[in-house]
Every structure is written in C-alpha cells, then in structure tokens.
C-alpha cells in the first residue's frame, strides 16, 4: 500500500504551499490522477485522512480529477482510448500501444482560508 507514501508526498506539497501563502487552513486539495496511474483511490483517501491529522490540511476535502488514458496505436497510427493497461486497441485489437496520457499523479491546486 504505497498510497500511504503518496499521501505523505501530497501533504508535504500542500503544507509547503499553505505556509508560503499564510493559510490558516486548507479546505480542499485537488488532485489529478490518471486512469492508468499507480493509485488505488480508496486507499489514497484513507491514507490522506490519516496523514493529514494534526496538519494544516486536517479535514480537507480531497477532490480527484481523473484524466482518461490515451495511447498511440502503432498499427492504426492514431491516438486511441485506453481504459486499463493491458487492454487492446479498441479499433484494431493490437497491443502495440504507447501510453501517451493517463499516468499523471499531481497536486493541481488547493483551496485555502
């Protein structure tokens, strides 16, 4: 469950931005998580709640924006949707796919007071 380590990374980023902006509290944290990223969202939410206790982000809402997966299909020569790693190209069935989007794991913004 590396989501705990990811949550710690999120809280460090959030704390540092909150400090820099003289925030009294962090009300919400917006994440961008790619559909193909190495994250189990439920585990991350649980970890976030645990890790934010006693920090400026305690009780903050965790909002997740999911970026859909995209891949470049070599045989088709075009960009196609990819819901999960290991899935075939929805058009030609090939696995000659190069992921181009959907692996993001970013803190996008925070709402502070």
């Amino acid at each position, binding site marked *: 469950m590396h989501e705990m380590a990811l949550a710690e990374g999120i809280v460090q980023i959030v704390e540092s931005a909150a400090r820099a902006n003289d925030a009294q509290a962090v009300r919400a944290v917006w994440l961008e998580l790619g559909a193909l990223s190495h994250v189990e969202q439920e585990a991350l939410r649980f970890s976030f709640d645990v890790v934010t206790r006693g920090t400026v982000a305690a009780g903050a809402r965790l909002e997740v924006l999911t970026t859909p997966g995209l891949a470049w299909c070599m045989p088709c020569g075009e960009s196609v949707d990819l819901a999960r790693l290991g899935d075939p190209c929805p058009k030609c069935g090939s696995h000659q796919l190069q992921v181009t989007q959907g692996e993001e*794991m970013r803190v996008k913004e925070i709402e502070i007071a």
Partner: protein
Amino acid sequence: MCTTCGCGNGETKIEGDAHQHEHRHADGTVHRHDHDHDHQHDPAHTHRDTAAHEHVHEHGQHDHGHDHSHGHAHEHEHVLPDGTVVRHSHDHGGVAAHGDHVHFGVGAAHAHAPGLSQSRMVQIEQDILAKNDRHARFNREFLAERGIFAVNLVSSPGSGKTTLLTESIARLLPSLPVTVIEGDQQTANDAERIRATGARALQINTGKGCHLDASMVERGLERLQPPDESVLFIENVGNLVCPAAFDLGEAHKVVVLSVTEGEDKPLKYPDMFRAATLMLLNKVDLLPYLDFDVARCIEYARRVNPAIEVMQVSATKGDGMDAWLAWVKLHAVTARHARVAPKSVAAE
C-alpha cells in the same frame, strides 16, 4: 506513521545507520529508543525547494503588484467522481508565477461566503512523487559519475530473487565488482546470504514500508560506497505493486517471475511489468511438473509492455544464466563507457 499498514518513513532502518539504545532503570523498566541519523545534505535538493518557496513568498506576501498583468483567465473543467462536470474560471488578477507553476487566483470560485475570510485557490501543479524523483536524479548522477550499472530487482515474495542474486554474484565476482542493497521489511537474512558470496551488501529494513524509495537508496549508497565501474543490485521489497511507482535512480528495473506463480501475473500487476525492461522467468527447471504456459505468460507481459525483454532462467540449475549475465555485463560495459565526469571536474 500509518495506523494500519504503515509505509511511514520513521521505521526505516539502514544497517549501521541508526543507533538503538536501551536504558534500564533501577525499577527494571526498559526504555528503547532509536536515533535516526537522517540528514539533509544535498544542496541541489534544498536549492530547488527553496527556490520554489522564495518564488511563492515574493508573489504572495507583497502587495505592490505586478504591473504586467497577464490578464488571462484559466478555465477549468473538473469531472467529479460521480460524473458531474464542474466548470469554473480563475482570473489571475495579475499574479502568476511561471516556471514553478505557482498561480494565485484572486479568490476561489468555490468560495460562496461573503463577509467571511474568503478562501482562495492556490494552483500548485506538482507531481506527487516530485521529491522521490529528485532523490532518484541525485542517485542516477552519483551512479553515472562512477560508471556504476544499477539494477532494481522486483518481484513478488518467493520468486527466487535472492537465490538468483547469489548465483549471479558467484559467476560475476571474479571479473566484475558487485555490491548489493537489500530491501526487506525486517531481518538482515538476505544481506547475510549475499555476503556469503563475498560481495558487500547493505540491508535496508523498511519497517512497515512496502517498497524502497529513492531517499533510502541515497542513504544506502552513502554508506555502501560501491566501487567505481561496478554492478549494483538493488533487491527491492517482495511486492509486485508498490515498487513500480518509485524510481530509485536505477538504470533498469528487472522483474522476476517464477513459473510456480500464475502466468497471468503480468495482467494482474501491469504497472510493474510496464515499468520493467526485462522479465526473468525463473525456476524453469520446474516446468515439466507444472501447468504453466510460458508462451501465454510472455504474450501477457507484452500486452502491457510490448518492448519488454524476456529470458527464461533457473537460478538453481543454471539454465539461461549465461544469457542473463551477458545482459548484465553488456550494460555494465555501457555504463563504464558512458561514465560522466563529476560536475566539479567537468566545470573546469
């Protein structure tokens, strides 16, 4: 750190790095505590952080505003987990720091309470793993300056990683210096097995943590001081999930899958097989007794990673070991030739 599963850093122990003390009081009570000799030492790391913070302070705390108003409004579309689409725009009232991507909206579009201290949005745009990746870059430079080839060996528990390592080291050592960083939650058993081969090994116990991260390896490298132009094996914690996300600064991840496991593991744990350059299919001497379809397993691995190389080996019987060690030697030679001068020298 975590009340349930951990992954906290506090419990990491690097051999010889943490002093453990035991005090016995007169009444018989025994207190144990650790000193963790952790220290920040790399100026490049703190420089990056400080720079970003200074940036933020500059814009955030001074009222004398920017005359060069950027005047662009960012429009965002948020898709909530339930499918609701929320659109809103931020007007960057003249305050926008590019470079480190710190933008300040005038007020949060989400703030609906007039009169109360208004909440505001602060754009951050930072990778969650940015800190790990900074340590990984430091490790990669450390290794490149010394011409060291580093392999991050990953697998589920029981795939035969440690046996594969001891057999590999025994064959490599006469011609090539080898050191090992051993990651396990507990015990120094594996490092002891490695040392029996004659190679130097450092055990890192992650405590409740489920993977090695780049800062652990950075501390490990400092302590281990692998020789120039050598091979460094990093044996990760047995886990096919978590180590996939953490760059340690290695040249390649090599995933070990034994034929006593399911042939569909590449599909079940695609992140790891996607992160690896090479899959070693271990224990192939047992194939006659098993119902394991090698061709299908390789096909599954290539579904998630069309470029993955595959070798079939048996660490105990020796099958395929020559090919695997030729791969290691080839990369070791490449690392030696690609050895970059340390920055201080290069600058002269």
